[in-house]
């Protein structure tokens, strides 16, 4: 059993009841978070949720209105940015336009008054890590977006910061490059082991890059979980709908019978699911059911016993590996299904009436 003391010592960064207001606008409220040494922690939320403000407060660009920030166990709330030893990658990269690649990466080392030879060796090592060896003499303006991104990364990691801060670093890249950089970021983290705080509004990026995700909304933490846990067991309706696609069914009354849990969604429309221990708390209460598009399928002979509803097909959205099927479920509202392949476009044309199954055993149940 770990003590709280040990946990504190293991934290690379710690925010204690941190709040930040800009005039009357509360950007961050009573934020409590311990970032573990070596982990990739993502701050995920819609724009304006306060995630960038948190990052700026860790870097020292913003001063909390109240609360305390610690890096490596030492309070830094009043320490200016240049003495904090954090490495930040900005959304726009913010490379120095009057310096070449080498000078950009060497900047932090020169500020630390490293000897010339050591600077050259460290820069070479960092550029090799981001696969930019040979571009030392290039002007920043001559680099592609992806290369600028790598220079920004090299510049931040070369100083071996106590924490690496990434502010939506992939958002300026096109889609293919973004996927490539996601993989490289993962590899880079494996090589450096740097404690990393990653800010994004892209749930896909968050799920694929993080050890833990902090979902934020309106300056407050909604949930802190590992990606799989977050996707499977969102803590509330906001998290459920923000992380991944999900269908929110209308409020239902949950009644436990002998072997089933029955959700009455509308008069005459009830769905039953085999009883599970964790459903016991919902007996007799109004709940919201959330079903992911991949947890629904078109009913066929192989799916007896599953909850089944009649729907009308509204549109198909073909996406290569799968097809999104939007259907009108009557009292259930509009629902989205994710069906592998494209056969469904032929099988269930627009306007046709079909039966679909909902895998309620996987569904998320939350209080209404």
């Amino acid at each position: 059993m770990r003590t709280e003391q040990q946990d504190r010592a293991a934290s690379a960064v710690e925010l204690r009841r941190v709040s930040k207001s800009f005039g009357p606008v509360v950007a961050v409220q009573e934020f409590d978070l311990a970032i573990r040494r070596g982990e990739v922690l993502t701050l995920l939320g819609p724009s304006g949720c306060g995630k960038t403000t948190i990052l700026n407060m860790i870097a020292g660009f913003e001063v909390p209105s109240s609360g305390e920030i610690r890096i490596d166990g030492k309070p830094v709330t009043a320490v200016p940015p240049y003495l904090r030893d954090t490495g930040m990658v900005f959304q726009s990269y913010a490379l120095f336009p009057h310096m070449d690649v080498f000078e950009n990466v060497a900047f932090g080392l020169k500020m630390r008054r490293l000897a010339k030879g050591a600077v050259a060796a460290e820069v070479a090592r960092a550029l090799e890590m981001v696969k930019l060896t040979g571009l030392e003499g290039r002007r920043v303006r001559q680099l592609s977006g992806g290369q600028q991104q790598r220079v920004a990364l090299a510049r931040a990691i070369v100083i071996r910061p106590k924490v690496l801060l990434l502010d939506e670093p992939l958002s300026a890249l096109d889609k293919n490059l973004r996927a490539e950089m996601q993989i490289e970021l993962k590899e880079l983290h494996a090589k450096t082991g740097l404690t990393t705080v990653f800010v994004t509004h892209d749930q896909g990026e968050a799920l694929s890059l993080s050890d833990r995700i902090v979902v934020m909304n309106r300056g407050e933490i909604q949930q802190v979980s590992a990606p799989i846990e977050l996707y499977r067991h969102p803590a509330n309706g906001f998290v459920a709908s923000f992380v991944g696609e999900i269908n929110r069914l209308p409020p239902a009354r949950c009644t436990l019978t002998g072997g089933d849990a029955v959700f009455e969604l509308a008069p005459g429309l009830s769905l039953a699911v085999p009883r599970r221990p964790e459903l016991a708390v919902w007996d007799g209460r109004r709940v919201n059911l959330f079903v992911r598009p991949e947890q629904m399928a078109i009913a066929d002979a192989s799916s007896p016993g599953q909850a089944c509803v009649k729907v009308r097909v509204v549109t198909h959205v073909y996406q290569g590996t799968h097809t999104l099927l939007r259907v009108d479920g009557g009292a259930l509202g509009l629902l989205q299904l994710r069906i592998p392949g494209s056969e469904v476009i032929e099988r269930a044309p627009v306007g046709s009436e079909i039966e679909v199954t909902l895998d309620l055993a996987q569904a998320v149940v939350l209080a209404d």
Partner: protein
Amino acid sequence: MSPIFAARLRAALFWGPVGLILLYMTIPALVVVMTSFSPSELLEFPPAGLSLRWYARALSYPDFRNGFANGLIVTTFASTAALAVGSAFAYLVDRYSFRGRAALEAVLSSPLIVPHFTTGFGFLLLGAELGLTRSYAIVIAAHVLLVLPFVVRSVYVSLKNIDPRLERAAANLGASPGRVLARVTLPLLLPGMAGGWLIAAILSLTEFTASLYVTEARTQTLPVAMYGYIREYSDPTIAAISALLIIATTLLMLLANRYLGLRRILAIDAH
């Protein structure tokens, strides 16, 4: 109406007015330059022939030579002093909010409102009071004041064009505020400062109204010497020296544009 005719009509409707505006803007300079090549003793337009004799006279005329040398002295000191003061002001106004900031901005642009002869007259009276009458110091002081708004504007625009995230990035990498200024802000500001200096130099070199009050025979600048000349003589020498001044200024502007990018200095970019 055929499409070709329509296109020609559109071109004519565009180039006609544009050509007229260009002509209007350049015609005084054209008349002066053409007159400068006149072989005749008289200021006449159009000239009857082609001669360089007035250029030879302009370049050898002692008052013009002294005036130009004086102008260089005044310009060098005035533009440099204006650059130092103006940059500091621009930095202050851009980076800090303080009581009286709006008032400071207004005062800094006041030379655009106060007529040059008022400024010149004021410095003449002030110089007399301080015992500096018609010294270089008083000429330079007047010129600093006159060119200051242009320097401030140029540096201010350059400051606005610096991405504040660059300074944050430098601080994040361990640069103290002083080193951020020395390693990032100032180097990025340099083109704007050089451009501001050059504009100040051109304005100072060609300034006449205020200079007329604060200079005397020993310290007079080229425009004042030119005014003195035209009061005594009426030959094309004055046209020749004017043409030389136009050419020199044009060259300076072209150089500035080539190496500093005046577009960047005179307008705020979108990031």
